[in-house]
């Protein structure tokens, strides 16, 4: 999602509905879908890599909430 789409979503009151898409787009900036599948598959054998990926996903969720003006806990 670009800045225009985010602003339009906020203006149209659908920020919560596009939140998953924005999170996905932010994650995809660093990890492709194949990267994610590989990390998940090797979750037990490469725990540090998984932790780094999981932390990044959590950051993306927080960033998406901030971009969409979604309050914490929502």
């Amino acid at each position: 999602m670009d800045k225009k789409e985010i602003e339009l979503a906020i203006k149209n009151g659908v920020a919560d509905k596009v939140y998953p898409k924005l999170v996905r787009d932010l994650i995809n900036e660093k990890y492709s879908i194949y990267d994610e599948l590989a990390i998940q598959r090797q979750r037990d054998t490469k725990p540090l890599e998984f932790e780094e990926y999981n932390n990044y996903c959590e950051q993306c969720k927080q960033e998406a909430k901030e971009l969409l003006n979604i309050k914490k806990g929502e």
Partner: protein
Amino acid sequence: MSIASEITRLQTAKSNIKTSIENKGVVVSSSDKLDDYPSLIDSINISTQEKVVNPQNYTREITPDVGYRGLSKVVLDGVLVDAHDSYTSNTDSSVAYTKSVPSGALKYASLDKLGGMSYKCLNLKDLNYPTMSYYRNNLTDFNATSDNSTTRIRTESFAFKPTSNKTYYLNNIPSGISLIGIGAFNSNQEIISSAFTSSGNSFSTTSSNVEYIFILFGGSNFDSNTKTLFTQIGIFESNNIYEPYFEGIRDTAITSVKSYGANLLNISDVAETTYLGITYKVQNGVIYLNGLSQNEISLYFTINEQTLNGTYYYYVEASGTTSNTLPKAFRKETTNVVNLTDNNTISVLNRIVNRILIYIPNATTITNYTYKPMLVSGSTAPTTYYPYRGLIETKTIPAEVQALTGYGWGVNDTCYNYIDYEAKKFIQKVARVKAKDLTFNTTSVSNMFSASDLNSVIKIVANNETANLLCNVLTTTTANSVYGKSTTNIIGVVNNGGIWIYVNDNITTVQELYNYFTDNDYIYYELATPIETDISSYIDDGYIEVEGNGSLTFDNTYEQAVPSEITYLVEV
């Protein structure tokens, strides 16, 4: 085989069977005899499990629960609806006077860019009476005016210098009248015989000496009143178009943006009425009918008067029953304009409508019939009914912005001045200069002239590229083509920023070139560095309320197409 070896073989087999049984989760004690082994084998758990799981967006293993040996079936419960794709953005960057709002568009759209466009007249010569004089005459003498023919009529002679081998079109010739031929004269007003060939409404010449022409039309029984037929004929470079002639260049500046609802039909309310057995009323655009008709009935319902011109979709949501089909039509008063078929397209050519007719045959039983009609532009069926809204919002461009230098100017679809709502700036990419204000010089190429006034500001292109230029009396081409005098009336930008012009071989001096231009002749050009003006104190956030299947109109004086960029959020 000895007995000892047989005993060994049996002991080994028993041991292996014991291991196999134990591998399948059953304990075999060392005291269990071979006779006990069948019951131990029977106790092996071979039960399998069926599982129902929800699909997820990550990889995981599905394993049987404790007590089961395996899975006999895995059922994916339902479909994962990916909420990520509930909405998508849709940006319309077309150049248009009116744009359709996409179906499913959410309430607010974003005005990203609003641009201007400059147009030169496509009509090379209006042949309108009485501005243009007509004579009943088949003589070819220059300025002859004797009035002696009833089947031929000609225009007065006028200055017109066609490009040789180029086809021109006389558009809007009245019905019953045809193009007979073109008379041609050179600069000395001497006749050039057979200069033109014509076919249908088109004509062309191979001569490069034509300076004046008249046009000869054929028909029958022309009299002094027939001249009034000769309005709105023009000479164009394309067929089947018309616009009135205007001098110079028209700048198309957006004065406001208007958003309209999808439904074009506004049916006036009618209080409940009973007529010949049928009770009817109209409320909020919905027509209600009930009863048994005692005769043929024509019910006229008033709608907002409007001109229909094009293709529309007539969408209907109806409930209840009728024992006969109820024909319907749009009418202007009682004159039929177009018959209507529910949920189908109609095509109308420039007709006014102000009523919708519903015809009820005699002895028709109607039971709680609810009829919700909607009319939308285009041929695509809407997915839902919209009540009539008409004008939803008007966003007026502030006067301070409209007053900025260059507002409304544009050379083509990619080079124009515009309001950037996101940056809150007015971006000027196009400037202009009066042709007469340039300092022209002769060049080494005869009849080709140059000007270097714009060298430091104009966007430079290669000599084989066409620059973004617009001049109402010259056609933009490459510098190489101007150098080669590929055709007449051409202008190009050189790779050092200079302007090259070639009009024709009759213009040989700078003074003659200046005489060629009028005060209305401008050259619009692309700036090397666009000028940005902060307009944040004048414009708002650039959102406008829209309705899916509705429309946006970019108001301007001449109702011409302008560039704009609008982004919608559309429900998928």
